[in-house]
């Protein structure tokens, strides 16, 4: 299992849901086809993603959508490097969505299958969206259920030897309200609760146990995770149309869970169109979290706690993102069956800093505290074309 894939299926359901909600104003969105390419580089990992999405209205009230996503990973994160293995893997995801609209209510049902050599995930998602109060308010309710089969590949990329370790089940409940406040201002609140049960750890990670006095100052040990996890996140956001034709968006998210992780996310976005041909967008994001209750950079001895983890996702950390996006509109008059098209370029730079997670690579020390705290920069590039018909 790749940590990077852990939540992708659930996010993919969200994508389908957001796509539905993006334009639900008593009509279903336009038919569209999208081609998508992405590349992530950072922290020793290179991940490329390719995707195709087709959405088609069968009738005025009923639409279907299909999405295929494949991503390829090479390299390894700092945790995996410390176990001297390098990953080369591929994940394929297929999803289908049915959507039905009746009056001011839109119903959606999505099924997703995600498969990689050592991880299989199946998700079902159902949601409804209701416009009310003269269409000033939109209420959305969603529910998802995911079942994951978790394995570990002890072989190589070319000759895999997968041992299946267990499974995990996850359920998600979300409620969202979007509210028009003035003719220039719209605001929203989202609440999502997610529960997990089963095999929840990443089998490719391990803990470090202190061995002072001789390099490298530590040995590796087995991690032990709880088998349940419940998280609650609430996000508020507002979008304002400026006195000139541009929009600014601000959002804040508070996160807490039963593993004692608390996260705060702040985001600011500015959108500026140019002559109905370009839409330019800049964004800033800051995130900070506290570590999980059973996380430690270095454990004093084996079995020193009931639960033990040294997963970088559970460490205290902060990161800052600066991003820019440019969308170019073409075929404004349409061509053949197409009404219009857009091409979008998106580039983000993310700077990660860990506050209690050391990088044990490089020079060896007999005193673990001499290892530097880990930090890295990542670049995320996306290009995609959308054709509307």
């Amino acid at each position, binding site marked *: 299992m790749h940590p990077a894939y852990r939540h992708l299926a659930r996010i993919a359901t969200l994508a389908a849901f957001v796509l539905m909600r993006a334009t639900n104003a008593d009509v279903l969105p336009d038919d569209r086809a999208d081609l998508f390419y992405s590349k992530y580089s950072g922290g020793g990992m290179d991940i490329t993603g390719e995707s195709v999405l087709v959405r088609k209205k069968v009738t005025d009230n009923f639409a279907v959508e299909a999405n295929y996503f494949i991503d390829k990973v090479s390299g390894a994160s700092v945790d995996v490097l410390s176990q001297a293995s390098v990953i080369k893997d591929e994940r394929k995801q297929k999803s289908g969505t049915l959507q039905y609209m009746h009056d001011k209510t839109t119903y959606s049902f999505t099924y997703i299958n995600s498969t990689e050599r050592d991880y299989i995930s199946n998700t079902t998602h159902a949601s409804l969206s209701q416009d009310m109060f003269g269409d000033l308010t939109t209420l*959305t309710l969603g529910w998802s259920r995911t079942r994951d089969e978790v394995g570990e590949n002890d072989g190589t990329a070319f000759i895999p030897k997968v041992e299946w370790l267990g499974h995990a089940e996850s359920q998600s409940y979300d409620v969202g309200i979007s509210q028009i406040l003035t003719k220039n201002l719209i605001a929203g609140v989202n609440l999502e609760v997610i529960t997990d049960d089963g095999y929840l750890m990443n089998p490719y990670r391990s803990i470090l146990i202190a061995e002072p006095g001789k390099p490298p100052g530590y040995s590796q040990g087995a991690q032990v995770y709880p088998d349940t996890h419940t998280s609650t996140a609430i996000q508020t956001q507002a979008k304002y149309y400026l006195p000139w034709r541009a929009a600014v968006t601000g959002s804040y998210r508070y996160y807490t869970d039963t593993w004692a992780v608390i996260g705060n996310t702040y985001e600011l976005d500015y959108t500026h169109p140019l002559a109905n041909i370009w839409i330019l967008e800049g964004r800033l994001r800051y995130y900070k979290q506290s570590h999980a209750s059973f996380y430690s950079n270095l454990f004093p001895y084996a079995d020193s706690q009931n639960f033990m983890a040294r997963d970088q*996702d559970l460490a205290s950390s902060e990161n800052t993102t600066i991003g820019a996006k440019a969308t170019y509109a073409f075929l404004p008059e349409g061509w053949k069956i197409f009404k219009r098209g857009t091409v979008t370029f998106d580039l983000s730079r993310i700077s990660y800093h860990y506050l209690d997670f050391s990088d044990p690579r490089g020079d060896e020390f007999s005193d673990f505290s001499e290892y530097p705290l880990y930090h890295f920069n990542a670049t995320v590039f996306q290009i*995609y074309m959308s054709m509307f018909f």
Partner: protein
Amino acid sequence: MQIARPALIASVLVLSCACSGIKPWVAPYERDRLADPIMAWDRDAISTAYLDHTREAREGSRGATGSAGGGCGCN
């Protein structure tokens, strides 16, 4: 689900109120700016989901990143 139940009750109450005929304070003809594509919560769902994915893979936090509700109700 302790938290989901109150949320469900609140949602039902809101849905009930929706039938009471509250007069919109922003009339449909005043929503031209809200109908502008730059005011959409999320113009590119696949892209946003991908960025959320890259973040969630390296952060302990998850969830509630969906843009609540749709557009502006401009039609």
